[in-house]
């Protein structure tokens, strides 16, 4: 996990600086927002001259998945005080969720220390992310040509690496294909509205496909009966 985030953080730092964000703002973003995918997209939007409201709305959509993570971990943290819950929520990311969730399901680990494990993995990810952003900012400012190296492809590769293993069911595949098609067709729309439109279309297509699969499955059962 840490190794995976290593190039990601460095590249975020270089891209952010080259897209016009100041070094201070780049570091502040990694320290206060701490959400890799949303930060990358925000930097891309800044580079393309998108407005504040568009960036904030995109942040909301891109990070909505964390609501699912918090719902899934809720049974394990509800006995903790708010002094625990606030930092654990702040540091809840894809990676720390994956690590913590696995640990909570592990029957061999001592239950009374599991939130310490959760906290530890969070702090490791957080300091790693911040340090890598710092390295990226320094590199990006000293080597101005780095923005043209095509390092932004790292984001494409990372997102593909996250999405492809999720495409296990047919509705998921439909959601991805519809989102891709709409994103390409609607790319010319102002304020990056194409991204939001495509996300919405993909989610709707997934829901419709799921209902269709479910109802056709029911018909098969009824036919068999």
């Amino acid at each position: 996990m840490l190794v995976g985030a290593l190039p990601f953080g460095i590249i975020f730092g270089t891209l952010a600086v080259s897209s016009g964000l100041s070094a201070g703002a780049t570091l502040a973003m990694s320290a206060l927002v701490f959400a890799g995918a949303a930060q990358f997209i925000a930097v891309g939007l800044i580079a393309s001259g998108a407005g504040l409201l568009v960036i904030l709305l995109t942040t909301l959509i891109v990070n909505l998945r964390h609501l699912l993570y918090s719902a899934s971990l809720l049974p394990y943290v509800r006995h903790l005080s708010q002094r625990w819950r606030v930092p654990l929520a702040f540091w809840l990311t894809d990676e720390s969720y994956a690590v913590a969730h696995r640990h909570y399901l592990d029957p061999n680990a001592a239950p009374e220390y599991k939130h310490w494990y959760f906290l530890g993995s969070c702090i490791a990810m957080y300091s790693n992310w911040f340090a890598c952003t710092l390295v990226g900012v320094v590199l990006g400012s000293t080597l101005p040509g780095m923005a043209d190296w095509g390092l932004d492809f790292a984001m494409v590769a990372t997102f593909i690496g996250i999405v492809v293993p999720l495409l296990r069911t047919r509705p998921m595949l439909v959601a991805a294909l519809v989102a891709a098609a709409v994103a390409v067709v609607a790319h010319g729309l102002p304020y990056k509205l194409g991204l939001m439109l495509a996300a919405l279309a993909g989610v709707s297509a997934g829901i419709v496909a799921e209902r269709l699969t479910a109802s056709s499955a029911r018909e098969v059962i009824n036919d068999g009966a």
Partner: protein
Amino acid sequence: MTVHEIVLITGMAVITFAIRYTLFAVGHRVRFSPWVAQGLHYVPVAVLTAIVAPAMLLSAGGELDLGVDNAYLVGGLAAIVLAARWRNLLVTIIGAMLCFFLWRWWLG
């Protein structure tokens, strides 16, 4: 830091924290309506694909570019194959980036 940057980062931080903390703060189990739960399920795939597809398929000028000289397309396809075969994020990132840079270097 400019005022614009401060507003932007504060806004992003508040939104992100609100999403992550709301359920932890309430503390008791929250039942999503089936529609919301179903919709949330598809959000990561839809959003990430919507970001990746234009980056792979469109040129810098926004034109559809399906030629072999589009390194983003070639590298992206390599990433899809690697991700489907190995299901390992690090393998996908390193392999696809290697393919992308070699392809660019080969094209000159």
